[in-house]
């Protein structure tokens, strides 16, 4: 290593020195830009939620500082005042701090992309910088990755723009977030990322062949990687975000870079570490597992007793079986702290309690005979006697009255009162905010918090609490269907917490899902080009029908779409055929009888025949069109009899030529199903009729 470094130094001493002198910078995004932690994050931004009694952003800042970052830009949006207050009070803003923290707030940030565009606009970074979220917990030594990154940039003249840090961990590991699960194809030697794909919700994975054709001869396809959400970026990253205004997330960026690799020549690399710990608290399940990892000392030296935030009175003692006790903790007679327990200062615990794998905050009171397992209790929580809590989150100021059972994955948000004598089923979420409020201020999600709070207070007074839900003395509303993103619906089964099955009838829901569909369309055009194109074509045809647009104009529109989505002519034709044939199903539902189907389709074919004629010109085009027809009817096997009529109509409209049909019939059969299709009686007759017609015409010709 050292000898290599020496050689470079001889090469360009001045630039080397310049780079060495520049302080290492970091961009910390203290906003998640999603609503995973709703309704908890309604009262407190995610970065300030306590993990092991320390705000998450403190872990991130400590991580940055320990890797030698000297200047950090913290970008906040949602509840920026609170984050600012917290940071100004913390040790990071003391004049002696080795890491200078600049806080930048704006209500206009809606995504990571906006933040980075602002970084570029303000010209904040001068050199390679580390990009993290405010909820990353890590002790990875990034300096090695940083060195590799700088080395690559020196050798390859700024081709590599980003190095992503991953940790090795087997698939299905509890600290792996299913949302963030990725599969990565990379070059073994250069660690260059060739293909990057999120696996969530996918049963099939596709790798473009061309990635394996050039480059070195060794490749790795890895699924054993845990995304730490730590990236080392060159200043170009910010510029690239500015250039491509549709990039919202890092995922967009990575995919964009990989797709445009040949054009722009930018590359992304990977750094895989085996030791060290790094994870992002991206949902409640991750919160649970990261918290337990932290208590089990995986993030050493960021352990609870280290008191790295340097707060007075935060210190605690550590004893065997990972039991941590803060100052002034009182433990009643016969109470057991089994293992992996963290108890904050001034907390008192009654007699005969049984506590395991739990984190209890400061100033809590816990009654007698309480059973806590995997409970996360924040500050000032009051738990009465005979309570059982399993794998749940209890936020600041919540009160749990006597004999309450919290089953798995419950969430009690701020200041909620529950009980007495109640059992909350799995996955119950209780908040002081009424769920309907949520729908109303859906749009102004990023309002300033004062406004928000005043607003909500009026609301809570108006509506009465339901004693059946929260108990006779309870305060709070059961929170259902709070998630608006369609992705979350899919995640409902596998993620803990706030994701219950959304109410299908609610208007806001469908609106929102449409929105998100729009977003996903604009967000990831590369992968869904074909689908998106299909949707667009459908829209165009629909509009054409409603507004009576001339077919020539339709052709024009489709052509422009073709260029927009970069679709080949062949695909255009196949998609067009498909869209037209499916049109009746689209309009009138899939329960059509064959007769109804043909009845509505045939006039359509007639109207749109010029469009077809425009695309179907060469002999090969005819065959492609026919195979598309065949494909569709193979799927819709109840309507196979309609196929003959369709072919007949197309023949009559001179969209298809008889030669092509005959050729398709004789040669096209590739598998059993299509062979079966060709045995259809109607089709046989049609073909025979065609043959005869041909004979006749040829005879006539003679």
């Amino acid at each position, binding site marked *: 290593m050292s000898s290599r470094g020496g050689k470079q130094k001889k090469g360009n001493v001045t630039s080397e020195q310049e780079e060495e002198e520049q302080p290492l910078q970091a961009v910390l995004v203290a906003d998640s830009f999603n609503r995973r932690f709703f309704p908890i994050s309604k009262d407190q931004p995610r970065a300030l939620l306590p993990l092991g009694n320390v705000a998450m952003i403190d872990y991130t800042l400590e991580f940055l500082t320990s890797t030698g970052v000297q200047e950090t830009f913290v970008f906040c949006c949602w509840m920026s005042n609170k984050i600012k207050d917290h940071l100004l009070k913390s040790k990071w803003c003391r004049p002696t701090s080795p890491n200078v923290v600049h806080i930048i707030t704006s209500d206009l940030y809606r995504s990571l992309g906006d933040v980075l565009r602002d970084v570029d606009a303000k010209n904040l970074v001068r050199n390679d910088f580390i990009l993290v979220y405010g909820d990353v917990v890590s*002790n990875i*030594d990034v300096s090695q990755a940083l060195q590799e990154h700088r080395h690559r940039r020196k050798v390859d003249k700024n081709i590599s723009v980003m190095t992503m840090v991953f940790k090795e*961990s087997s698939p*299905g*590991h509890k600290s792996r977030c299913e949302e963030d699960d990725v599969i990565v194809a990379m070059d073994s030697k250069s660690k260059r990322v060739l293909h990057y794909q999120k696996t969530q919700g996918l049963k099939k994975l596709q790798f473009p062949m061309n990635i394996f054709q050039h480059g070195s001869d060794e490749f790795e396809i890895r699924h054993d990687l845990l995304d730490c959400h730590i990236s080392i970026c060159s200043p170009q990253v910010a510029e690239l975000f500015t250039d491509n205004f549709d990039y919202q997330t890092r995922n967009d960026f990575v995919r964009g870079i990989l797709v445009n690799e040949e054009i722009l020549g930018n590359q992304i690399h990977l750094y895989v570490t085996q030791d060290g710990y790094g994870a992002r608290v991206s949902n409640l399940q991750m919160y649970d597992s990261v918290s337990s990892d932290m208590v089990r000392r995986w993030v050493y030296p960021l352990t609870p007793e280290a008191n790295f935030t340097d707060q007075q009175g935060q210190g605690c003692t550590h004893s065997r079986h*990972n039991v941590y006790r803060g100052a002034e903790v009182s433990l009643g007679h016969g109470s057991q702290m089994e*293992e992996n327990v963290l108890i904050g200062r001034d907390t008192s615990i009654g007699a005969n309690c049984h506590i395991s794998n739990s984190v209890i905050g400061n100033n809590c009171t816990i009654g007698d005979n309480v059973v806590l397992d995997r409970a996360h209790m924040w500050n000032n929580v009051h738990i009465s006697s005979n309570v059982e809590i399993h794998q749940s989150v209890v936020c600041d100021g919540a009160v749990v009255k006597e004999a309450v059972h919290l089953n798995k994955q419950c969430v009690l948000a701020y200041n909620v009162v529950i009980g007495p004598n109640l059992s909350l089923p799995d996955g119950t979420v209780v908040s002081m905010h009424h769920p309907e409020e949520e729908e109303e201020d859906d749009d102004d999600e990023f309002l300033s918090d004062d406004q928000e709070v005043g607003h909500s207070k009026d609301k809570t007074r108006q509506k009465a609490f339901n004693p059946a839900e929260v108990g006779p003395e309870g305060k709070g509303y059961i929170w259902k269907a709070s998630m608006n993103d369609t992705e979350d619906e899919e995640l409902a089964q596998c993620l803990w917490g706030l994701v219950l099955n959304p109410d299908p009838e609610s208007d806001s829901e469908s609106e929102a899902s449409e929105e998100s569909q729009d977003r996903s369309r604009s967000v990831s055009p590369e992968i869904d080009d074909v689908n998106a194109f299909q949707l667009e074509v459908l829209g165009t045809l629909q509009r054409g029908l409603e507004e009576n647009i001339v077919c020539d104009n339709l052709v024009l529109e489709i052509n422009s779409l073709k260029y927009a989505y970069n679709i080949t002519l062949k695909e255009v034709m196949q998609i067009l055929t498909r869209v037209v044939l499916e049109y009746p199903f689209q309009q009138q539902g899939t329960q059509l009888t064959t007769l109804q189907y043909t009845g509505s389709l045939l006039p359509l074919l007639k109207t749109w025949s010029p469009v077809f004629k425009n695309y179907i010109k060469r002999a090969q085009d005819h065959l492609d069109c026919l195979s598309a027809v065949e494909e569709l009817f193979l799927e819709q096997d109840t309507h196979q009899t309609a196929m003959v009529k369709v072919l007949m109509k197309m023949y009559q409209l001179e969209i298809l030529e008889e030669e092509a049909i005959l050729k398709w019939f004789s040669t096209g059969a590739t598998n059993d199903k299509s062979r079966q299709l060709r045995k259809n009686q109607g089709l046989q007759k049609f073909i025979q009729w065609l043959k005869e017609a041909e004979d006749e015409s040829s005879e006539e010709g003679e």
Partner: protein
Amino acid sequence: MPGADKETDLTERIEAFLADLKRGGSGTGPLRGSGEMARETTYLLRRITAQARWSSAGDLMEIIRNEGRRMTAAQPSETTVGNMVRRVLKIIREEYARSRGSSEETEQQESLHKLLTAGELSEENFRQHFVLLKANVIEAINELLTELDGTTDNIAMQALEHIHSNEVIMTVGRSRTVEAFLKDAARKRKFHVIVAECAPFCQGHEMATGLSKVGIETTVIADAAIFAVMSRVNKVIIGTQTVLANGGLRAVNGTHSVALAARHHSTPLIICAPMFKLSPQFPNEEDTFHKFVSPHEVLPFTILCILTFLSELKVNSVSSPELITLFISNIGGNAPSYIYRLMSELYHPEDHKL
């Protein structure tokens, strides 16, 4: 204002030192031996003495005690830091007494007899101001620093008295002091060293390469083989992290098993420990005593998805004084039972608890 500059410079240095301590041993911070740690602490304390604002010895002691408390809290397992703070406090006491011109008599420890005869003893308050005190204290700290610099050499010099030709020596893990000790003996004598690798960190491997480079015949064995090999060993020479007030040890994990095996075979167990490792702690303070690190080394993170059990990795173990034959420090060899005496020479009893 240069004064203010000095002040912030000082606090900056202290903060940086604290941060280093907190990250100590994780691989992210600079990893240092306890000798270096002791030196750095002393440098910092000298700087505090020179730059902080104080008018009397009492003020200075208060400042140093405060900083010392923070430093020890930052990494309780690193006892050297606390020891050096106590040494400096002792120096201040001595220098103050000397400036006052009081005799040796008053400086000596309080005995039962004295307590009975003295009646209302005037409490020393260290409030008197002396112009030369600062210079004297700094001078004395400099002497302490030279002593620290020479410790390893002083210990190594005694090697020939303990290691004889054709002996088989066993050691555990890696200790800079022991390495220097053995290397010094190897200049004149030929002997065989068996190194227990000391899993899971396997510092023993480093030790073995270091020793074999200077031509010492070295064998690395697994920790499990310690007992089996012990019968052939003439002497066990190991290092330690801390020498406890009762003459016990707090050393790298695995030391205790070596000590027990040595006792079983009646093999002498010799500890190389410089004086700055002598701590007034007793092995009953469970909480601060052990250092637990990430369980990564024994249980890879990757396989955790299958297993969920309690995983802990303790870095050190405690051995009781009766297992130990001899301590070799920079001021000579001592039996474990004599440690209490050394303790009273090095530290003032009032400083035992910072």
